[in-house]
């Protein structure tokens, strides 16, 4: 399963990778976690598991039972299980800047200890609770690619329940992974093919490679207005002087969508930065033509 449109150049490789897995129930999750942990241990990675809804002891017991290496790995510190509440949710609000810095530190520490890299497996259902800062989850998912995976051997694996991925903000966040789509989950797979399936509805955002920004997939209309605003808010928090928005997989942008893009460009311009739109669909060009004053600062390029 790939989200890339056929014929497009493959993105440049990263040292790390960022995967999304979804599950229907506890049993399916347990099976996936066992396989993911087994794989990480076999690769010589330091493996850190964040449990959200179940006690850490239970997860550790399960892993001991299911993964032959797990017991020894827990003993020697290659594998550890923490709760989200004691881990990255201990200090709220959830803050992508701190998360990214922390992930970089942890990976560098693991590498200095001789591990091949850091594998972080996290249950993400906390994002559907009223956790302060959960609205910045999409930003975190989108920024990992350029700010962590490019130069560090981090394998980030986000576990979303099927319940979570049908809800904001997890739906957009789960769809923001370049790999690892679960065919069983419509919120993710609707964007997966990049072709006919995206005709259904909605808008998804993926990290942009190369460059710093986002690649949008879908349509920007009234049905996806909230998603577009969330994605652009996340994009403006990317630490880059130029934020690129690739629209090659967007078939339509309406007037209100254009207004949101123009507003985002103005916000960035106010910070001495730029928003650059690539491969804008004809509708966006036509709206910009009809509102030349409002779209004066909207940069569009091939």
């Amino acid at each position: 399963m790939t989200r890339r449109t056929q014929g497009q150049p493959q993105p440049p490789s990263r040292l790390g990778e960022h995967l999304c897995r979804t599950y229907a129930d506890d049993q399916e999750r347990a099976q996936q976690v066992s396989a993911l942990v087994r794989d990480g241990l076999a690769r010589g990675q330091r493996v850190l598991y964040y449990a959200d809804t179940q006690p850490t002891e239970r997860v550790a017991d399960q892993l001991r039972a299911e993964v032959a290496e797990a017991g020894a790995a827990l003993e020697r510190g290659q594998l550890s299980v923490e709760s989200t509440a004691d881990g990255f949710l201990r200090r709220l609000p959830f803050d992508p800047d701190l998360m990214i810095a922390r992930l970089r530190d942890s990976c560098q520490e693991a590498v200095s200890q001789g591990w091949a890299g850091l594998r972080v497996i996290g249950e993400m259902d906390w994002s559907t609770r009223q956790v302060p800062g959960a609205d910045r989850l999409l930003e975190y998912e989108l920024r990992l690619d350029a700010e962590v995976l490019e130069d560090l051997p981090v394998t980030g694996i986000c576990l979303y329940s099927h319940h979570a991925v049908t809800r904001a903000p997890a739906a957009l966040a789960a769809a923001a992974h370049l790999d690892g789509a679960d065919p069983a989950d419509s919120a993710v797979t609707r964007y997966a093919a990049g072709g006919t399936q995206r005709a259904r509805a909605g808008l998804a955002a993926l990290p942009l490679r190369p460059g710093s920004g986002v690649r949008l997939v879908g349509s920007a209309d009234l049905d996806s207005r909230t998603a577009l605003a969330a994605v652009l808010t996340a994009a403006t928090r990317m630490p880059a002087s130029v934020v690129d928005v690739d629209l090659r997989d967007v078939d339509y942008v309406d007037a209100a969508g254009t207004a949101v893009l123009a507003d985002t460009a103005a916000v960035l311009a106010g910070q001495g930065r730029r928003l650059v739109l690539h491969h804008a669909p004809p509708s966006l060009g036509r709206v910009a033509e009809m509102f030349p004053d409002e779209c004066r600062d909207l940069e569009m390029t091939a």
Partner: protein
Amino acid sequence: MTDTASSLVPVGSFVHPALFYRTTEEYVDAVGSFAHAALAAGEPCLIAVPGTQLEALRPALADAADQVELVDMTVLGRNPGRILAALQSFADRHPGRAARIVGEPIWAGRTHAEILEATRHEALINSAFAHRGATILCPYDVTSLPESVVADARRTHPTIWDQGEDLASPAYTDPAAVCADCDLPLPEPAGATVLVYAAGQLAQVRHQAEAWVRATALTPARQGDLILAIGEATANSLAHGGGSGTLRLWTAENAAVVAEIRDGGHLHDPLAGRSRPHLASTHGGRGLWMIHQLCDLVEIRAAADGLTLRLHVTP
């Protein structure tokens, strides 16, 4: 006529006469005098009339060509629903001054549907410019236009200039009443593709419409214009029209591609879409303004049970 034109603008009041003319000579004399009076008074002047009439006027305006804005109304007013925004924009570009405009929205050859919408436009001029210092003179060729058009001109203009006289029009009627009279039942098409939509289905219905439009004689650019207009209209159904709507598509006898959007909306402001909105405006009107700009004709029917828009785009 010169005397009448130069003395007719008390500050802050709106003057909206119909000019009934019979010959080109009479036309050139009246419109030429109007323009020269505007320039003599130092007021901005716009003449928006059909191209053939512009040609007839050129010799009379030769000395003022660079001071009068000349526009071909068959282009600007191809869709009568976008004329009013253009006239207001002209007035807005000259704040604090009383714009003097010649606008000829109805000419021989206009279809019945266009004449209805142009009549609606003539009525709404009175609402849009009320309490605004401006003069809009609307020429009517009474020898070639149907009597019903002349009768409606008497209803939409507070005064009539006829054979050198400036007379009040006893038939003048409140704009809302004229607009209601323009809401005549629309003829049913012989056959149409019917698509219904609700929240979450905008992209789907747009893609179906795109596939349908691709098989018409419209150029890709005009196809794009129609799809953009449909996109704004269907979004309006969700936001202001009760949350759902019906889109019907067909090709008319004159080869025009027609898209009809019907929903539960009410046109609370009859001037909605008839002035240029800001891109970021959210109070409605932006979509309708765009639709008027993008289409060759927009028929509007505001009924008690909902709103119908018929968008026409010709190849």
